[in-house]
């Protein structure tokens, strides 16, 4: 089996598992309790908070633990919107659905939303962003790196543009950036940033939102007042411990590991381009996530391709999976101006910690054969 879908999820790293085990076994206390077992559990949460803060260049008090990346995005955007429900919001056409669908929901509930376009390589149009800004703009949400095509967004410039023209907060969905490229909230200057544990070798169902000190947002979940009132509910202590360990390890390794993954990606890209005439690389001219290759293959259906790859033991994905599990043409590719028919034939390979040359070889050997077989029918 060749797992080449690290952008979907990653196997748990040993460091995360080891960090979690004490909180699944002996330290069962409620971190909000005042006695010993409670304090033991609380220590796990606070250590993890420091680890996440260190990983992204924040202060521990700026980290809010959530039930995942999507919740973190929702908390940032709705949290800002609840303070000003009829305000103006800006995002891009290539966001993850955690952001896009939230923006659409705000629109349906009285807010105004401007969707800033991207160029043919999936990079935000900064001029359009500048023009979209208004005095009443509440929040601008621009992802750090796109999950489907890997295009890294000029976030520092986004912050400069927004801050020079408005009072708006800047949020970024940094789920795909953490642990893959250097990502430091102090250098970039964003106000809010969402992270997910399971994309960086941590457990599923845990995430975090960076909330810059003095940034005012409302909670989505009310209750016991945990996380300084921004996320009530008893902490998922083991999950948070796993997130802390995984975030720190992946951030530390990001640079070196990034070089290695880029080597795998570049070889896969050049060998596929050589073997498969007509294949196009998405976001080819953009600065891309190092371990991600997204291609379009003319004359095939992406869902058939993934089925055949699965049968051949290759786990890859394509487009954005909808709830029923089928594929619609990716909104990201459509936003980049890729022809709808070609967009149906997109496939994404993403590498991570356990990826090796053998994974590249397997894809290079299998993909052209499978495509030839599928094309025979159509």
């Amino acid at each position, binding site marked *: 089996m060749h797992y080449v879908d690290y952008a979907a999820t990653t196997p748990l790293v040993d460091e995360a598992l080891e960090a979690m085990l004490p909180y699944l076994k002996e330290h069962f206390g409620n971190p909000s309790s005042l006695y010993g077992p409670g304090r033991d559990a609380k220590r796990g949460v606070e250590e993890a908070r420091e680890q996440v803060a260190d990983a992204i260049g924040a202060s521990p008090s700026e980290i809010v633990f959530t039930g995942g990346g999507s919740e973190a995005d929702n908390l940032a955007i709705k949290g800002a919107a609840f303070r000003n429900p009829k305000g103006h919001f800006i995002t891009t056409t290539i966001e993850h659905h955690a952001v896009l669908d939230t923006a659409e929901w705000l629109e349906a509930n009285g807010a105004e939303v401007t969707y800033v376009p991207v160029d043919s390589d999936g990079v935000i149009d900064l001029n359009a962003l500048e023009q979209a800004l208004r005095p009443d703009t509440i929040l601008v949400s621009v992802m750090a790196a796109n999950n489907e095509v890997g295009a890294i967004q000029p976030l520092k410039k986004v912050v400069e543009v927004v801050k020079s023209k408005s009072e708006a907060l800047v949020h970024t969905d940094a789920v795909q950036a953490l642990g893959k490229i250097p990502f430091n909230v102090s250098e970039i200057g964003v106000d809010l940033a969402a992270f997910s544990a399971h994309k960086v070798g941590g457990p599923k169902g845990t995430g975090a939102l960076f909330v810059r000190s003095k940034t005012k947002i409302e909670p989505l979940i009310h209750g016991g007042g945990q996380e300084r009132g921004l996320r009530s509910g008893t902490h998922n202590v083991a999950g948070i411990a796993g997130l802390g360990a995984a975030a720190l390890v992946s951030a530390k390794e990001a640079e070196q590991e990034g070089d290695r993954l880029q080597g795998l990606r570049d070889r896969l890209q050049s060998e596929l381009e050589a073997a498969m005439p007509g294949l196009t690389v998405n976001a080819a001219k953009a600065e891309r996530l190092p371990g991600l290759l997204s291609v379009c293959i003319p004359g095939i259906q992406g869902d058939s391709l993934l*089925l055949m790859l699965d049968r051949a033991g290759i786990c890859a994905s394509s487009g954005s999976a909808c709830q029923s599990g089928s594929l*619609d043409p990716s909104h990201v590719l459509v936003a980049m101006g890729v022809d709808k028919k070609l967009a149906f034939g997109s496939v994404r390979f993403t590498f991570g910690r356990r990826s090796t040359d053998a994974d590249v070889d397997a894809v290079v050997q299998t993909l052209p054969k499978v495509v030839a077989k599928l094309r025979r*029918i159509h």
Partner: protein
Amino acid sequence: MKRQAVVAMSGGVDSSVAAALMKEDGYEVTGIMLKLWSGEAVNNESGCCSVDAAEDARRVAQVLDIPFYVLNFADEFDRRVVSPWIHAYRSGRTPNPCVECNRNVKFAALLDRARSYDADVMATGHYARVDRSGGHPKLKRGKDSGKDQSYVLYMLGRSELADAAFPVGEYSKTEIRSIAESLGLRTAQKPESQEICFVPSGDSHAFLRETVPDGSIPGPVVDDDGTVLGTHHGFAHYTPGQRRGLGVALGKPLYVKEIRPRLNTVVVAHAGDLQVNMLELEGTTFVSGESPDELRASVMTRYRGPEAAATLVRGNSGYSVMFDEPQGPVAPGQAAVFYSDDEVLGGGTISSTH
């Protein structure tokens, strides 16, 4: 290597058991659900192709331990099933979308894909049988006559039948439910879906008002002499033989006899004046691939309708069906399917009745 089967799974009990039976038969089974809408599916009462249905089918595949995929056929379905369905209603016909789906999607696009996956056979949950005892495969009625679905499969030819399997057709519905229960499938007691899968909430009148606005304008209800007897709600909302919704109160009950879309008129008649002696067909196909000049057959003119003895005659513009005895109302747009005992010989779309 094990023989490969692709099974079209809807989340319902029949296709679930079809997958189980293929696996029991020694095939390596791949379950496939057809997604027929772009975006998220309409959630309707029949539950067809909704997220819930996909989850049901996926859970069945987990229990059976077979891989399961949802494939997008939204484009084919819209072009080849929904649009023709709307067009047929605009023309005053009463179409059967399941026939067009089988003709143009399941046993066309899906079968092509199954073949491209190196599948040896594609199975569905239809109550029908393929008889392979002779030199060529034959299409036969399902064993459970109350559930028989061979009517909606008449367009299959030998090449499709060679690669098709209908495992549930060998059983009664009761047996299928008990097989589902013995396998621990939660879909075992799921109710039958009767609605048209793409009509939201099964409200075909609301859907027609939206998709066939020109057939949803009130107009005159007339008798054979052209005397206006009342007002209808829009010609697309009526079908020959229908009695309700005419807004006409006369001594003897009146039924729809004919729909005249260009005049936005619904013609009604008393029961005795509705009889049909002859049908004109279009798009007639025979399972054997041959086109006989003349043929005696038993003809069904609607799903689960009665059979009537008739002679088929090939003319210049297509086949005609001459009934031995006058028949009750028949709706243009429905399929006329030819049987010899329990074997399907072929069929066509009814274009007019006389």
